[in-house]
Structures are given as structure tokens and as C-alpha cells.
């Protein structure tokens, strides 16, 4: 099977996303997130190149700045300050959850060809754009469900957001630019607020295991 550049980049981003599931070392997770987002930026630039939509270049630059450069560094700084290194007691062992992620990639492939209306707008008859986006969504959900550390939860949210972003660039001719920029700003502010909360969780509870936050119930 010959992959076009578009398909290769989409798959690369999905696979790099799945690799995040492969380790519980938070610093490695952040690095993989960085590379995974970089692949998405490259894909955005490539789509901008084939569709000649100039505003995609600006969006790609903004994503590069916020999600590749700033957010992982910020979270790395939070990790260092809060003195947390790894997410030791994941509900499912890392290798197993990575394999689950790979299985979900296959499921996404089947699903995206079944659900009507999901063929990409840039590549006639190719479902790989939506396959990658859906697989990244599942990866994010898996991260949030199987990990306990507050930082993994933030990362899971970021991966889900990347999946949605990928849907937006592969399924449409680019969302309106103001919307894209507003979205990036929200992600940025959201990550900063939750980073600050993470400090406070560490300070009050002396751990960042959010599965132990169960005091409030009926």
C-alpha cells in the first residue's frame, strides 16, 4: 500500500500519540506529546500547501508556539516544582494500555470507513485522516481513564483536544481562524489553571493521585 504524504503524516501523529501510552514516566510522556503535536503541525502545513489556504500556515505557527513549545515546557516546569516523576500506579500497565491504543487504531480505521460522511475533503476516498483523528481521541480517553496522576489527566485532555483539532483540519477546509485562535487561547489558559491547581493538590494532599480524591459524595 502506497501512502501519500498526507496519509503518512496523519498516521505518524496517531502512532506517536499511542507511544504516549507506552510509558508511565511523565517526562517521556511530555516528549512524546511534543513530537506527536509536531507531526500534527507538519500535517497542517502540508494541507495548507496542497489546498493553498494561507491561513492554515498561521494556525500551524500558532499551534507550534503554544502546543509544541510552550505547553510541554510549562508542564515540565510544573512537574519539576511539584517533584513528581512518574505515574506509578496506572490502573492498566503501560505496555497493555499501549496495545489497547494500537487496537483502537484498528477500530478507528473500521469505524471511520463505516460512518457516512467521514471521507476527508482533501484526499478522495481516503479515510486515514479521520482514522488518525479518531485514534488520537481514543488515545486521549485511554490516558484519562487508565492513569491516576493529575498530570496525566491534563495530558489526556490535551491529546483529546489534538484529536478534535485533527478532525477539524482533515474534515473541513479549516475552521474560521478566529475560532482556531480562541480555541488555542482557551487550551493555554486551561492548562495554566490546571497546572496551578496541581501545585495545590500536591501541597495539600502530598500526592497528585486524583483517584484518591473521593471525599465528596452523597
Amino acid at each position, binding site marked *: 500500500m502506497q501512502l501519500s504524504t498526507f496519509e503518512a503524516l496523519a498516521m505518524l501523529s496517531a502512532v506517536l500519540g499511542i507511544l504516549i501510552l507506552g510509558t508511565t514516566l511523565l517526562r517521556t510522556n511530555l516528549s512524546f506529546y511534543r513530537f506527536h503535536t509536531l507531526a500534527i503541525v507538519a500535517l497542517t502545513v502540508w494541507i495548507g500547501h496542497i489546498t493553498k489556504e494561507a491561513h492554515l500556515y498561521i494556525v500551524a505557527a500558532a499551534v507550534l508556539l503554544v502546543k509544541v513549545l510552550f505547553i510541554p515546557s510549562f508542564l515540565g516546569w510544573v512537574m519539576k516544582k511539584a517533584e513528581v516523576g512518574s505515574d506509578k500506579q496506572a490502573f492498566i500497565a503501560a505496555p497493555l494500555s499501549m496495545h489497547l491504543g494500537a487496537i483502537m487504531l484498528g477500530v478507528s480505521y473500521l469505524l471511520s470507513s463505516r460512518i457516512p*460522511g467521514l471521507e476527508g475533503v482533501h484526499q478522495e476516498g481516503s479515510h486515514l485522516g479521520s482514522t488518525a483523528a479518531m485514534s488520537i481521541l481514543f488515545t486521549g480517553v485511554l490516558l484519562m481513564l487508565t492513569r491516576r496522576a493529575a498530570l496525566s489527566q491534563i495530558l489526556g485532555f490535551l491529546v483529546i483536544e489534538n484529536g478534535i483539532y485533527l478532525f477539524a483540519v482533515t474534515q473541513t*477546509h479549516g475552521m*474560521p481562524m478566529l475560532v482556531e485562535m480562541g*480555541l488555542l487561547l482557551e487550551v493555554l489558559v486551561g492548562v495554566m*489553571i*490546571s497546572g496551578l*491547581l496541581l501545585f495545590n493538590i500536591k501541597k495539600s494532599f502530598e500526592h497528585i493521585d486524583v483517584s484518591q480524591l473521593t471525599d*465528596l459524595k452523597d
Partner: protein
Amino acid sequence: MNELGLLFTIPSLTALLSLFIKKTAITGKLCALAAWLQLALVISVLLPILTGHSTSISFAPGLIVDKLGSYFILLTTFVVACALTHADYFFQAQAVIGEPYKDSRLKLFYAVVNIFLMAMTSVFLCDSLGYLWIAIEATTLSSAPLVYFERNKHALEATWKYLIVCSVGIAFALLGTVFIFAASQRSDLGSGTLNVSELIVSAKTLSFPLLRLGFIFCLLGYGTKAGIFPLHSWLPDAHSEAPAPASAMLSGSLLNCALFGIWKASTVITAAKPEAPAFHLVAVMGALTVVAASIFIIRQHNLKRLWAYSSIENVGLMVFAIGLGSGPLFFLQALNHSLAKVSLFLISGNIVQAAGTKKLSKLHGLLENSPFWAGALALASLAVAGAPPFGSFMTEMSLLTLSLGHKYYILAALINVALAVSFLGILAHTGKVIFGAGKPDFKVFSERRAALVPMLLVASTLAIGLLVNYESR
């Protein structure tokens, strides 16, 4: 553009000032005053719509306010003004009878409330689903510091859950928005649009499978934020841990924002296919939420959580009204719920503050301690539970009548039973709080002033019940 800027001038200035004014007693009064001024300003800007001279005002591309939106802006500003007026009393009382809050915390509270007000106002100005999403996420981010106000472990837990659950929920609404945009690009619209007004015009040509998918994701996403069952887990935690004025705003105005998102998305799908099976999902989820909430109401042990679950029940009713496609009933239900629930949260805040506990088992004898508050609590809980002749009763009646017209017999019956159950539950719980032996260590501060805002709100929902002509709806 000018008028748009005008709407945000007062809150943004007040937010800045709150950070710089040293005496928080002054800030409290200033913020309350500013909120009432904002209400007057909002009325003057929206006057053409309110008097019926025009059906909508367009501020900028993608920012159009229609009749429903302008009513909601009024309601939101009114709720915030009431909550801030009461907050001034609330924090003073805390300084007298309990441990006073730090000045820095109060400064942040007032600044954040003003930002929160701006975010909520912008929700109702949005015609573009993309801007709508941004505005709703902004309400989540700006209200998180309000939930974390107490700075203790419980507040931290509630804030974390609130932030994560709502952000992820809303992320799915974003996915839905992307799908709706994709649907619009496979239609007459060509390059695609997110503006609801344009989507409705060419709704029939949109790619329906994508639109349906988008609508379902929007319903689930915004539904999480509105607290529909089974995605409500964050709501009782956040509402019970926030300080009373903040709980009042979360319940009385924030929930409406998320429901407005569902309403906007539903207007597109009903324009595309009036009897789409996916749209029936809305009414079913609304009814389910009402039933589930009524069960939770019965087995509550915490006064503020009780009102949080009652909010979930009312959200269910509002979702049901959206499912019936009735904008006026959706607004009336929201209006009556907001007025009564804000009143309840404020008066309960006083009670919790004076008694030093939220536990229902430890609250009793309010009638002996403070007859005035007992009266206010009784009236407000009757109003929330939907006793005649309060506004909620009239709306619930019209809602059930309308649902029979839509042939939702089973859902109407379920809602009926659930409403009766929660009515009894609420009365039983408040009865225990009001009657019995008084508490010896109950510290009442400035009894009359404390009940001023709650009483005003209850009186207005009573007036709506008596005066609004429901037949014409």
C-alpha cells in the same frame, strides 16, 4: 461594534478596580453597584428587542443577539447583581461570626466574578457555534477560581473535578461543532459557516449524517456542562463547595449558558429535519435527568447538595422544554428556576454560615433561631419545588400539557411522578431544618438585611406565576 464594547466596559473596569482597591468592604459595594448599572446598560442596549421593534441586533459577523438571547442576558445580569449585593452582606457576616476571609482572596473573588459575568454575557451574543464554544469554555475557566474559593481540600477536589469533567465534556461539544461545520461545507453554503442564522436558512441542504453526529456530540458536551444525568457528577460537588453567592451564580446563570448551547444546536437540526430521531433524544435525556435527580433528592444529607440536585432536576425540565422545541417555555423555566434557586442558595448560605454545618442531620429548629429566615427558606423551597402559585408550577404545567401534544405520554407520566417525589423530598428536608428544637450556638447577623435579596427574588417568581399569561404561550 460600539455597543458591543459598551456591554463589556463596566465589568472589565470593575474587575480591574477590584484588584487595586485596598479595602474589600468598598470593593464589595462598588461591585454590587456596578452590576446594577450593568443591568441598566444592558436594558438600554437591548431595548429595541425588548420592546419588540426589532427581532435581533447584529453586533459583528457571528455575533447576533435574538429575543431569547436578550432575555437570557437580562436574567444573567440580574442574577449576578443579586448575588453580588448579597455577597457584600455574606462576607461581612463571615467577618463578624466566623473567621474572616483574607483580603487578597476577596479581591480575586470580585475580579473573577466580573470576568465570569463578561463570559456569560458573551455566550448569549453568539450566533457562530465556534464563538459559542469559546464563550462557554471561558465560563468554565473563569468560574473555577470561584469554586476554589475556600482553599481547602474539599474545594480543591471539587474544582479539579469541575475543571477536568467540564473541559473534557466541552471538548466533545467542540467535536460536534467541527462536524456541523463539516456538514455545512458539503452543502449549498460552499465554503461553510458556523453561523446559526445562515445554517438554519440552508439547513435542508446540509449533509445530514454529519449534522446528526455533530448535534449528538453537542448535546452530550454541553449537557455535561449543564449537568444532565449521567454526566452530572461534578455539579453537586462544585455547587456545594463554592461560597453561597458563587453557588447561586453557578446554579442561576451558568447552567443556562450551557443549555443555551444545546438550544442553538437544536434549532439547526430541527430546521434540517423536524422529526429527526436524534432530536427525540433531547426530550428523553431531559426526562431521565428529572427522574434521576428526584431519586438523589430523597437521599440527601447535605443542604447545599440538596439544592444542587434540585438544579439538576430543573435542568432536566429545561432540556425537556428544548426537546419540545419551545423556546418560551425553556426561558420561563430557566427564569423561575434561577430566581427561586438563587434565593435558596443565598438564604441557605446564611443558615450554613450561622449554624456552622451543611449537614441536614445537624440542622434543625430554624423557626426558633430566626423566624424571618425560616419564612424565607420555606417560601423559596416551595417556589423551587414548584408549588402553586409560584412561577415554576405554571411552567411545569404548561410543559406537561405541551408534551401531551407531542405524544410524549410515557415521558410526561415519568416526569409527573418524579416531580411529585422531589416535591415531597424537598419539603421533608426543609421541614426538618425549619422545625424542631433551636440550635443554641446559632449566630444570626443582621437578620433583616440577610433576607432582603432572597425575599425580593421569591416575590418576583411569585409575581411571574400570578401575572404571566401562560395560555398564550
